């Protein structure tokens, strides 16, 4: 049921950079438009945390939460019809042809990700925009994110990007402070 992991170059990751997330809901709407979803289910959801703290010292952040596409996904193991599947490239998705809308996956998932689409009676869950990705396109949420808080690519490239940005931040800091 859960395929052997292929080499990492075939897999992609979605990096959520909370330091750039402003809670604008763009990813949520992009996902709905891409998958033609009604009001209700939110395969990606932005959660506002805070403000915490006292007086002038407040902290507030936003966290875009979506399916983690687990290596050992509980939803896949729990699904009675085999609708919930994990692909070789790591994407966990639900096949609407097989889904009976029993929501066992929703109970099994430790992160509360799968939700029912009230229009179709089937599970609506992040499918990693697999059709888009197969066509070489970025997932809708990442592409439309106004601030670049969602970054998509192979782990090597994404990590490289993070490191490079961090290095530049250090260099710029040095330049400005001396």
């Amino acid at each position: 049921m859960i395929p052997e992991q292929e080499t990492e170059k075939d897999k992609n990751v979605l990096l959520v950079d909370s330091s750039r997330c402003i809670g604008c809901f763009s990813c949520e709407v992009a996902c709905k438009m891409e998958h033609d979803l009604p009001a209700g289910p939110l395969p990606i959801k932005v959660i506002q945390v805070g403000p915490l703290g006292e007086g002038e010292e407040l902290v507030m952040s936003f966290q875009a939460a979506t399916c983690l596409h687990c290596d050992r996904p509980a939803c896949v193991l729990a699904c009675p019809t085999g609708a919930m599947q994990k692909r070789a490239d790591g994407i966990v998705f639900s096949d609407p042809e097989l889904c009976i809308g029993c929501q066992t996956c929703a109970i099994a998932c430790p992160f509360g990700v799968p939700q029912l689409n009230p229009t179709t009676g089937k599970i609506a869950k992040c499918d990693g925009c697999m059709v888009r990705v197969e066509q070489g396109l970025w997932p809708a949420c990442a592409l439309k994110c106004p601030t670049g808080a969602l970054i998509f690519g192979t782990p090597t490239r994404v990590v490289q990007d993070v490191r490079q940005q961090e290095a530049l931040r250090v260099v710029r800091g040095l330049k400005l402070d001396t």
Partner: protein
Amino acid sequence: MIDYRSLNRFPGTRKDHDRVVRTICQECSVGCGLLAYVKEARIVDVQGDEDHPISRGRLCAKGMAFVQGLENPDRITRPATREGPHDQFKVLDDWEKALDLLAEDLRKINGKYGPRSLIIACDPEAGLDYYIGAMRFAKLWDTPFVFHLMRSPGDLSIPPGVKIRTRPCSDWVNSQCLFLVEADLATTHPVAFSWVLDAQSRGTKIIAADTRFTATMSKADMAVRIRPETGNVLGLALMKMMLEEDLHDSAFLEEAFADPGQWKASFETMSLNGFEKTTNLTLEKVKALSGLMGNKSPVTLITGKRLANRLNYSIWLTMAMAMGWINVSGGGWYPLDSGVPRITQNADIQDRDSLVVSFEEEGDPNGLLKELAVIAQDPESPVKAIICSGNCLNDFLTPIRNIVKGMDLVLYFGSFPNATWDFSHMVFPATLWAERNGLCFSNDRAIQWSEKIIDPVDGCRSGLDFWMGLARRFGDVKHLQWEPYFPWKKEDGLTDHVAFYNWLLDQSPDTAGCDVDRLRGSGDGSKLVFWPFHEGTADRAKIKPTHAPAAIEPLIQEQEEEKSYPLCFQATRIISRSGDSSRWWPWTQELELENAVQINPETAQVLGIENGDEVLVSGAEGKMEGRAWISRMVPRWMVWSPGHLGERRVLVHKRGQTSEEAIHILGEFFNDTRTGNREG
């Protein structure tokens, strides 16, 4: 410059489509480029335009969800009429016949009560063409009462010939510091805010001053919380301190300011005694702020729309000039929602005296409306008809709603059955922006052509079509020359929008010489067209800067009012709503509660209010019901809501609690805070 190339983005659609329309989103004033994918006259997908210099392929929630308005089953698509607000609407299939009926009704009202019996109200969503059409029809009809929310740059004391450029948001990465005052850019304009974050990651210091702890504040390097409506006062104090520290640009001052000595002296003598009480900020904090800003040149000042209606607004332009930030890359003044150039709407038609009431220019909308409420009931010449677009009667015309009930004709030009529709006798279905060609004036002062994506839903027409149809009928009966008022008619009797916008561009000295063809050419996104379109030869006219007042007066707060209404109230926009039609988009409608009432946890605790409780917010005149959202985003002494109430001070209590109880509890609570029984 250290440069960095980020990961390649792979844009595009997977949806089957016949054609792609490259256009500009008109949901707000950022001016994002979008690509709309159309199949069989339906929009099947919307993607950002990767080549667009402002938006770089990104889109906000509103810039996608607008599609749901176009096909909404609740949309009004036929003109309709009824006797009174309690009757059923009778649908009229024919626009022309509906206009005949309307003209007949209006003619009767005009005959009986005269031309001043008609009020016209314009909401921004109906478009620039509805607004201009309304202004010209009002001239033809001879009514002075046109209410609108169109913004034009106020009198900033810049003599003609002196060109002040607003630099585009892409220039913020060249700033040393961005100072956002009462501007929650992350919420109102998320795509533009990405430039703030880009600047920050390049080392630009981000400072934000606002009352609520907003999303913008949460990203700032320095967050300063001030009392509502005191942003301009903070500007005055900052200017004074930067002058004291000698951080200003003396050379520019000598060269450009009319009387630099006198100007400087006004700041030297300005007393700051009332400052701390007015703004809730310590002078030490302002000093730290002025030191930081004064040493980080160039700074871009980004000011919110709310500041524009208040005293001393022009301090920001004066500051940007005095500090030498203006006309320098990475510096200057960026006022939000001020991207529409001054347009002389009626220069080409005969001159008549006309009193056009713009809230933006006149300052106090409530005062004006109260005045209008009196005028409307004048037995000599009562106001008996109103033509409104959007949801004016539930928005900026709320104070005259009671008068509207007694009118002979209430006409609603719009797309959805809202509260204004509830009042109406006649309805005319309006096109939405995606169905009509238009111009987009962005915050950046870019002028962009927004190509229509699809043809209008059958039965809907543009605002200019409406006014032109009405003008023709009125003109024919009165034997008036109406054509010069509407010189943009196509052979089918409808509006040639290209001709109209070419005319419009010619009406402003800032945009004259630019035309739609030129703007279409800029559609590849590589180069935007900005106004002023022609670089003027900067003559040596001296600038008259904003002088400091003698002292900073505390805001007028009557003791008695403070007792009965112990909390400040603020209403600002939420991220998922733009115009009235955004209420009909299921994707964004579910995201945020429109009647949320944000209360500080400590205040809520003493009042016994919990998250999600039904609460009542009441001011001296306005009242609203809402759901409590308990959050530290608001200070203890304030409540916030996206719903407009038209009040500055309010009382909040939950259901089942009397106002006396709530006043008593809050009185003790604030007393304790003041005397130190609780931590300040």
